[in-house]
């Protein structure tokens, strides 16, 4: 009954707000993930991410920014919508919708006050924007992933975990999950009003706050405004403010528009209608005007209070620091800105038999061998212009013997290379391949019979990746045929002659119609082997110095799994082509067959070449900037989370270079300052009553208490005891939190 009466006692406006937050939790979070799934996303990451695309990496160009934005294009749209509403109506997203802030708030409101920590007294603006600039510039530079401190990951994962999804549980049990969980408890559940994360650490909130402040400068926008003539200074709004945005200055409520979330709670509790969520009404002429005095004065509804007109001439250390930080950021940004190949009609007559359908048998190993070749497919394929005998050289008689079908890919064939008029061969590629990390595989002696042995070998053969594919996908074939039929009239005006038409016209047309492979197809090719754990466990790598052969470690075996958990992998999985495929990093241009191990100085993934690789093909152009010491060290195959997904996999847990450990290191100071400081304050600072209303930093205390920061150090009396005096004076109704 007590609960019901408590619920009834909640002001109506707040009831609606809680209801919308709960609704948003259901709409955005697991198990339904309704809104993100509309755009095909299982969580709030990847293309929906709203808090990563604006990160600044040293040396970044506008093009890079465009890249980051196009990856998270839905997030960009969402954030713009959020900002537009914030400008006109106050922070609707933060206060009314955001389940990442709303959920901890609701939980926190259900927890008795005596267990909670008061963060609202800390100076909000400097901490928030100080951290925001670290988040924006320093963390990317040091290579700490923005995702390691993200509550847009944590809260959805908690819901996922409770909805029974193993991914959620696995995340929460990982190092970064635990850190984020601790943050959520400390700054969410066990913070007074549960909004400390939003106040201090949320980058979306930080940007939103700035826009809110900007919006509040205009009269037509709807923000929390104070009517000074009505305010009695009773403090009730300040005590109820969940973000600690309201301070009493000269016994009149003053709203800090950087922090205010327009949650309306102050309006609900104010007995005098001195504070409201309004736009300034249009000035209507008063009914009677006498000698310049208004008889019906209209309320001013001030959102921003300039108590004393300081202007730009008056300097304060806060302004200087903030100015320097933003100036540096600006400076950094400004500085860094400155075939229709010839077709042979089967000269050896092989298709007399091989074109028949159903030429099959099962060999002694149980492999179904199909000797039928689809004639039209073959002629449209990559090798369509190569006569059979150019590859199957051993065949002299027919019917031929099975073992005579052997092929060596390094042999040359009758096709002439158009530029050099030399016989075409894959010899160079084969040599490059044999020098590569995959080099122990089969390149010659390929027959239909040893397909089984090739499949069992841990090293790939040519055929493991390459089949005789069509130039053009089956889907695009009708389009190609249609265009090819008109080629002589369209291109033939300038390019005349059968030779051109046959040799180059079709070739160029194919390039116009589209490439054959998507990045996901390429990844699938790599995963055919690398995702096969049983096969990968057997791989032995030779140490070049000692010549010893050692079995590979779990990092290698689980490379495919750890890739899938990285941002690269998840982007591609959700269909965003901007994510990097395996090949993009391990075999970029010039490395196609010579994939080397990362400790080879020539490898694209060698630490010295990594920056170049990341910067290639328009991905992270800024990576070559020498200031980016951390970015290239980001571990894209971090396997810390994997033992939770596969409990059986043997792993060493002692890896200190993990991304998660880095995140912990970055978090510790924050935790110590926020948590430790507050606890110490609670133990040593307060002997008597707590003054909720008195929130804010030195500047505020100076204004309200008339105490200069310097005095604190002189006398034995602490600042708090002087606060107590003020409390008695001000006839306020503050109570302790018990």
């Amino acid at each position, binding site marked *: 009954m007590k609960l019901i009466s408590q619920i009834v006692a909640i002001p109506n406006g707040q009831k609606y707000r809680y209801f919308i937050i709960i609704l948003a939790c259901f709409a955005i979070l697991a198990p339904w993930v309704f809104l993100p799934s509309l755009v095909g996303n299982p969580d709030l990451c990847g293309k929906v991410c709203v808090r990563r695309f604006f990160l600044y990496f040293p040396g970044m160009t506008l093009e890079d920014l465009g890249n980051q934005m196009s990856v998270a294009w839905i997030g960009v749209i969402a954030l713009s919508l959020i900002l537009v509403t914030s400008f006109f109506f106050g922070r609707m997203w933060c206060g009314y919708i955001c389940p990442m802030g709303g959920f901890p708030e609701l939980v926190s409101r259900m927890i008795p006050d005596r267990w909670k920590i008061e963060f609202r007294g800390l100076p909000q603006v400097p901490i928030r924007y100080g951290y925001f600039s670290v988040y924006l510039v320093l963390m990317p530079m040091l290579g700490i992933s923005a995702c390691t401190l993200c509550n847009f990951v944590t809260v959805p994962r908690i819901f996922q975990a409770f909805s029974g999804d193993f991914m959620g549980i696995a995340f929460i049990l990982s190092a970064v999950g635990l850190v984020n969980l601790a943050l959520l408890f400390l700054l969410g559940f066990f913070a007074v009003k549960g909004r400390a994360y939003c106040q201090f650490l949320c980058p979306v909130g930080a940007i939103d706050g700035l826009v809110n402040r900007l919006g509040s400068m205009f009269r037509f926008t709807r923000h929390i405004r104070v009517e000074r003539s009505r305010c009695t200074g009773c403090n009730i709004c300040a005590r109820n403010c969940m973000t600690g945005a309201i301070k009493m200055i000269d016994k009149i409520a003053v709203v800090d528009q950087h922090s205010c979330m327009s949650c309306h709670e102050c309006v609900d509790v104010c007995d005098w209608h001195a504070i409201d969520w309004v736009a300034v009404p249009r000035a209507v002429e008063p009914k009677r005007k006498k000698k310049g005095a208004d008889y019906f004065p209209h309320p001013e509804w001030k959102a921003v209070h300039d108590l004393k007109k300081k202007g730009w001439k008056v300097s304060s250390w806060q302004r200087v620091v903030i100015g320097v930080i933003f100036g540096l950021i600006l400076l950094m940004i400004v500085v860094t800105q400155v075939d229709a190949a010839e077709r042979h009609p089967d000269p*050896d007559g092989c298709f007399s038999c091989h074109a028949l359908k159903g030429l*099959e048998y099962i060999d002694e190993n*149980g492999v*179904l061998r199909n000797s039928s070749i*689809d004639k039209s497919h073959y002629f449209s394929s990559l090798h369509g212009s190569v006569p059979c005998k150019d590859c199957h050289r051993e065949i002299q008689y027919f019917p031929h013997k099975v073992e005579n079908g052997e092929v060596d890919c390094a042999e040359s064939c009758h096709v002439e290379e158009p530029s050099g008029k030399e016989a075409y061969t894959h010899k160079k590629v084969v040599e490059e391949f044999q020098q590569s990390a995959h080099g122990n595989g089969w390149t010659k002696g390929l027959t239909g019979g040893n397909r089984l042995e090739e499949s069992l070998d841990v090293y790939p053969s040519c*055929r493991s990746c390459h*089949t005789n594919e069509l130039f053009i996908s089956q889907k695009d074939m009708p389009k190609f045929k249609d265009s090819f039929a008109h080629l002589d009239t369209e291109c033939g005006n300038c390019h005349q002659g059968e030779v051109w038409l046959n040799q180059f016209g079709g070739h160029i047309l194919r390039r116009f119609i589209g490439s054959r492979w998507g990045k996901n197809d390429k990844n699938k090719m790599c995963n055919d082997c690398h995702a096969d754990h049983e096969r990968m466990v057997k791989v032995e790598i030779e140490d070049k110095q000692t010549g010893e052969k050692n079995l590979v470690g779990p990092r290698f075996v689980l490379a495919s799994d750890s890739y899938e958990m990285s941002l690269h992998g998840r982007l591609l999985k959700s269909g965003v082509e901007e994510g990097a495929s395996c090949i993009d990093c391990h075999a970029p241009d010039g490395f196609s067959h010579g994939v080397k191990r990362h400790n080879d100085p020539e490898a694209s993934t060698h630490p010295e070449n990594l920056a170049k690789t990341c910067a290639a093909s328009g991905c992270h152009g800024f990576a070559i900037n020498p200031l980016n010491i951390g970015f290239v060290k980001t571990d894209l195959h971090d396997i810390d989370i994997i033992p939770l997904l596969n409990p059986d996999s043997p792993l060493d847990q002692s890896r200190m270079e993990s991304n998660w450990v880095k995140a912990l290191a970055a978090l510790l100071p924050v935790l110590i300052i926020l948590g430790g400081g507050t606890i110490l304050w609670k133990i040593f600072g307060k002997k008597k009553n707590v003054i909720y209303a008195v929130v804010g930093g030195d500047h505020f205390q100076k204004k309200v208490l008339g105490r200069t920061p310097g005095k604190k150090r002189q006398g034995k009396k602490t600042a708090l005891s002087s606060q107590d005096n003020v409390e008695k004076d001000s006839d306020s109704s503050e109570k302790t939190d018990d």
Partner: protein
Amino acid sequence: MKKILIQARKLMIKLIMLSFCLLLSLSVTADNLFIELVDGKNVTDKNVADALKQLREHKEIKLKKNLSVNPFHHKKETENKLKQPFCQNCHLEKPHQVNQRNRSFLNMHTNYISCETCHLKDEGMKLKYKWLAYGYPNAGQVIDVYSSVHTEAEKVKVSILPRPGARIIPINNDQRMLVFKDEKFSREVENKWKTFSIEDKARLKANLHKPLNKKGLSCDKCHSENQKVLDFKLLGANEKQSHSITSNKIAQFFSRYKKDTDRLKMSDLLR
């Protein structure tokens, strides 16, 4: 508990289906001449001994599927939704395996000729050959070639196959001389095979193969101008089609090709 329930349900479904099939097969195969032949008791001791020897020397081959290395040349997946003949209880789908020279070609013929067409001894029987549907729907029904999907004009280009999954079968007095895998007789044999000792198995094997030839018809039995086995007209072929079958070059070559030295040298062909 849940598992037991599921298993019980599966068992129920199986039982219902089994009884349904039994009823159906009883009505269909009441007195099948082929089954009478196969059930014949006149096997010789030599037959049984041979069968025993074969059974003892047999090595089972398991079909390996989904190799990680794909064939280099494009292979179309063969659709395999056909009614299976009784023989496939033991024999692989592509049964010809030993003779390297022609196994692929013989296996190719299994796509449009039933096993019994080649391997059944026609002792004293007047066999006719007709198309039978192996594919669903209407699997197991004789196909009337006059209602085949191909018009006369189309027949010039396409094979005489009236529709995919049809095979030529022997018919004696309007009775098809073959048994399908899902019929009662086939299941009885299968059950016996599971429970019998090796000697009994050998006798069963000899019995089953008694009316059959180990070596099927040779190529020229059908692929020659004066062949008498198949009536191509009855099978729906026009003049041109039957001519192309009877004068098939590959089949004629195979009837000449006995030794390795009989093979053709490719360079000779080019001159």
